[in-house]
């Protein structure tokens, strides 16, 4: 735990008796603060179970933990994700659906929570998740439905993604995250499987636009699979000019047309790689030299985790296909917190001023009261480190057209220098003509 600690004594250089007492208080405080952990720190045991490749135990641990009503969304999101890792898709979707309902209930700003966040800390507010987390709920629900082969239900989620993204674009126009490329891409694939070509085309187009933005912001390459999808569908829909433009932009001259792809099936593989960055607290504590009171300001900060797996390689019948990053959750999380930092900082500073005033007022009544209030104020000044920590760090993706039949697929996870870090055999994958077979692989490194 790293903490910036600044202590400044009075300008005279000699510390008066009261000042010495305060210094003592200061050291006790930092000891006390060390003992009372932030939310993300208390979540570490669950993460350790995941790193030990035991999602079932992680789930048990999560369910045993007490959580307050204001953390309910967070609990449900984590629960849904852990259930998904244990391949209980139905229960996972129940948890996600409950989370969605609660997020909608928490739409309005709470008067009491807002007030408390100005007096105590930001953690007193109900957790509703960042915008990207709210969209990813729909994405993971859609994936659960797809893995249960319930295409119509997945389509419901695809429509909800659209509504949610429209709301976000209107709500927070200045935000770094207004479109989700991978969510758009997945909705396109869902529409395409159902033969809704125009909806699929629109979704692919939006995915392409937002991948261009992803490229600028997070350095995510535009997946080559999407390029083929755009070419195939613009050809199918007779969009000659658009097709010519894509051909020029991608410099691809050959692709599989819609009819021949429909005679084949497809394996859609996703690697949910590692864990999302962790929020931690960054605090500064100073002694105001004039008043001798302690002032503490705590702000949240994302700390990226090591991502040893750089890509995955699928081996089917001697063919090798490499995955590409489709969603850089780490990058999105960091950028979207950055966009929120001015507001969070402003609130923290306002809170520090207010807290100092209360201590001053109490101190006028009685010196001990002032000291106690000051102590309480500093103790309660904690950063809001809640985030959906069981999300992967990034999502890798590959689309693989295959003739109908049974397949055994070998998945190799590659680290730097293409060293194979882990392998998994997916046996008995049945590919049917015109259908897409979704397969998700959650991989969490043993060292977090």
């Amino acid at each position, binding site marked *: 735990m790293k903490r910036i600690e600044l202590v400044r004594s009075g300008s005279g250089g000699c510390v008066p008796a009261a000042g010495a007492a305060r210094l003592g208080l200061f050291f006790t405080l930092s000891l006390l603060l060390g003992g009372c952990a932030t939310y993300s720190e208390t979540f570490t045991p669950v993460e350790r179970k995941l790193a030990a490749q035991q999602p079932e135990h992680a789930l048990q641990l999560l369910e045993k933990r007490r959580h307050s009503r204001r953390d309910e969304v967070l609990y449900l999101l984590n629960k849904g994700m852990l259930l998904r890792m244990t391949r209980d898709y139905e229960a996972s979707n129940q948890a996600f659906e409950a989370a969605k309902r609660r997020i909608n209930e928490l*739409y309005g700003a709470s*008067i*009491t929570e807002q007030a408390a966040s100005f007096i105590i800390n930001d953690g007193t507010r109900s957790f509703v998740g960042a915008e990207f987390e709210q969209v990813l709920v729909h994405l993971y629900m859609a994936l659960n439905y797809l893995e249960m082969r319930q295409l119509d239900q997945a389509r419901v989620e695809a*429509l909800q993604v659209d*509504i949610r993204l429209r709301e976000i674009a*209107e709500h927070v126009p200045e935000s770094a995250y207004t479109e989700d490329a991978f969510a758009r891409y997945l909705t396109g694939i869902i529409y395409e499987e159902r033969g809704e070509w125009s909806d699929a085309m629109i979704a692919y187009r939006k995915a392409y636009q937002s991948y261009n933005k992803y490229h600028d912001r997070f350095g995510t390459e535009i997946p080559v699979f999407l390029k083929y999808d755009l070419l195939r569908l613009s050809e199918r829909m007779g969009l000659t000019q658009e097709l010519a433009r894509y051909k020029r932009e991608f410099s691809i001259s050959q692709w599989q047309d819609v009819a021949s792809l429909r005679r084949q099936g497809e394996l859609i593989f996703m690697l949910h790689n590692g864990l999302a960055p962790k929020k931690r607290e960054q605090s500064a504590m100073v002694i105001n030299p004039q008043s001798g009171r302690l002032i503490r300001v705590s702000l949240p900060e994302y700390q990226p985790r090591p991502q040893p797996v750089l890509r995955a390689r699928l081996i089917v019948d001697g063919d090798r296909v490499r995955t590409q990053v489709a969603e850089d959750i780490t990058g999105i999380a960091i950028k979207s917190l950055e966009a929120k930092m001015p507001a969070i900082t402003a609130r923290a500073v306002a809170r520090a001023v207010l807290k100092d005033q209360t201590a001053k007022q109490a101190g006028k009544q009685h010196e001990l009261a002032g000291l106690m209030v000051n102590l309480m104020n500093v103790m309660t000044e904690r950063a809001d480190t809640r985030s959906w920590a069981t999300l992967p760090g990034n999502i890798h993706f590959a689309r693989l057209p295959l003739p109908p039949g049974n397949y055994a697929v070998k998945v190799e996870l590659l680290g730097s220098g293409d060293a194979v870090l882990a392998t998994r055999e997916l046996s008995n994958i049945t590919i049917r003509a015109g259908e897409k077979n979704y397969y998700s692989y959650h991989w969490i490194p043993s060292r977090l």
Partner: protein
Amino acid sequence: MRRYREQFTRFHVIPLALILSLLQVGCATSVTRMDAGEVKDLSGAWNDTDSRLVSEEMIQDVLSRSWLQQYVRAQRKQPTVIVGEIRNLSHEHINVNTFVADMERSLINSGKVEFVASRTERQDVREEREDQDLHAREDTRKAMGQEIGADFMLKGTINTIVDPSGTKQVRYYQVNLTLISMADNRKVWVGQKEIKKLVKRSKLRF
């Protein structure tokens, strides 16, 4: 220190009592029985009232149209209907079984239309019949191959258009049901019910 304690008792007991009484309100689970016909919209999502409105409208429509009389006149028997797939193309996870069951019940009870069991129900019945073949007394045994083939299939879709803006949202639901003749794919009846809602969400909560 005594002055301190006096102040505490005077100023802090009253708000403390207030907070406690507020907390207590939220604690107990309460259940209120409601009439099944009562309209209660909570979140603005598809609910029992919508389902009921759809089934009422559809039943009235399907029984009053000419396809029924025409069929009875031509075939001199009542039409047999099977429920096919009702696709949910809306943005909500809607349970379509509620209004399909409503329709089925009203149509059967009207005495004008007969229904045959749907695909999944049939599977169950067939398994039971196979079991009868082995275990039931001969005079009570039901023979295989005596099922009635349906004349019409009821198919449908639910579609939605959502227009969100700020705290307001207009939700438009359109339920389309079609009765298709099994013999020649003719659509003999198309029913439609539209529902439109304006959902306003509060910017503030307690």
